[in-house]
């Protein structure tokens, strides 16, 4: 299922980023961890219940303005879907 553009993703219980002074930045989950860099970190940092999926897309299209906007959108939606399958996100409407 593709995330709803107007929903607010946020990290699920038991999932958090390591501290800012810990490198590399990592998404910590029960029995799992995911190294984040560049765009994946930009996305996960915005999964705070304050940004809609649409806002995350717009933000990253600005940051990665050299990339094709449609491709950026597709990648973000794909990435959020994968994080959801990992049970790392909750989406609030």
């Amino acid at each position: 299922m593709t995330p709803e553009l107007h929903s607010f993703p946020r990290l699920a219980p038991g999932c958090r980023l390591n501290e800012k002074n810990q490198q590399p930045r990592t998404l910590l989950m029960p029995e799992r961890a995911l190294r984040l860099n560049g765009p994946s970190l930009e996305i996960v940092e915005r999964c705070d219940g304050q940004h809609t999926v649409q806002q995350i897309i717009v933000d990253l299209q600005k940051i990665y303005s050299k990339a094709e906007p449609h491709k950026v959108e597709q990648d973000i939606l794909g990435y959020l879907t994968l994080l959801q399958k990992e049970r790392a996100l909750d989406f609030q409407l």
Partner: protein
Amino acid sequence: MAISPFCKKSARSTFSCSGFGHGPIFLLNMTSTIPNPLALIAELTHRCPLHCVYCSNPLELQSRTNELTTEVWSRVFKEAAEAGVLQADFTGGEPLARPDIVELVRAARSAGLYVNLITSGLPLDEAKLAALGEAGLDHIQLSFQGAREETANEISGTKSQAQKLRVLEWLRQHRIAVTLNFVIHRRNMDQLEEMVALAESSCATRIEFANVQYYGWAFANRENLLPTRVQLDQSLTLIKREQERLQGRIRVEYVVPDYYAKYPKPCMGGWGRKLMLITPSGDALPCHAAQVIPGLAFENVKDRSLREIWEHSAAFQKFRGEAWMQEPCKTCDRRELDFGGCRCQAMLLAGDAAATDPVCSLSPLRAKVDAILAGLNAAPPAQLFVKPAWLYRPNPA
């Protein structure tokens, strides 16, 4: 508490996180393999109010007088974080049997680790749970021995179900993340639907169904724990269905019973590749059951730093890489996938820790495993489903 007869052993494989198996991504470079230890399994104590018949602790249990102090554990957590460890799994025995448990959680969290508590939930009250949360506990794995009280009592040799249900309610109120852990076997495998229902009625975001792995007390009780082929097939169908139905709500993990598998599990993600286990007295082990392998000398965290042990200890070096492998592993295409399986299982079943794990269909000894399964599956059900004379794990002093 003995949960995880090795749920860790195989469930950890995802920890390598070589990405989510995604196709070409132009801007998302997610992960790479990390050469450091990633998780520290801290066996804080062997003391436990439960007597589970499949406990993954060794048959020889440590007493309280041999346990590491708060100070030593705190240093170990710092050293672990410095060595690249991301997560600490507090286990036992029952880790809540340690009176300094809140202090230990705080120490591990402030060292920079993700702190997971694997517990029966027995020696816990609401105030203690709140204190654990305040100290930085990230996640709890709450063990259940069955969905029905009668089964749970039989398997754990104690009464615990009502308390576990209370703990679940406190977890919801205190917003602490929880995985329900069900160790499954012949005596409770027909309760999977009820187990899922229990999880759905709670605030759990994950369920872990871990088939018993046969080491320690489970090896001693194997004859009465092994599931039948019919049970296994039914469970696989159910798990697949529930994984799809609960997607996005509850993640359903499943640890296969490797006696029925075609290939062995990549035990611990490979010997000395990802995980390190510290026993209650401070010995550093590459695997829960490593003490069954004769001739391995384990170093102690009281004598040497964690990183030195990880890098140089003879026990960790022993089965790293491929030099130790025999045929058919030595030239097998799968040797980088499963690392020849489990060294401790090779010891237990083949009498040789460097042999191919005998559960592998390519092992010359696979017939031995097949004979065990054939005997079981040919037995009349009336014989298989009566309450056996269990060998219960004692609670050490």
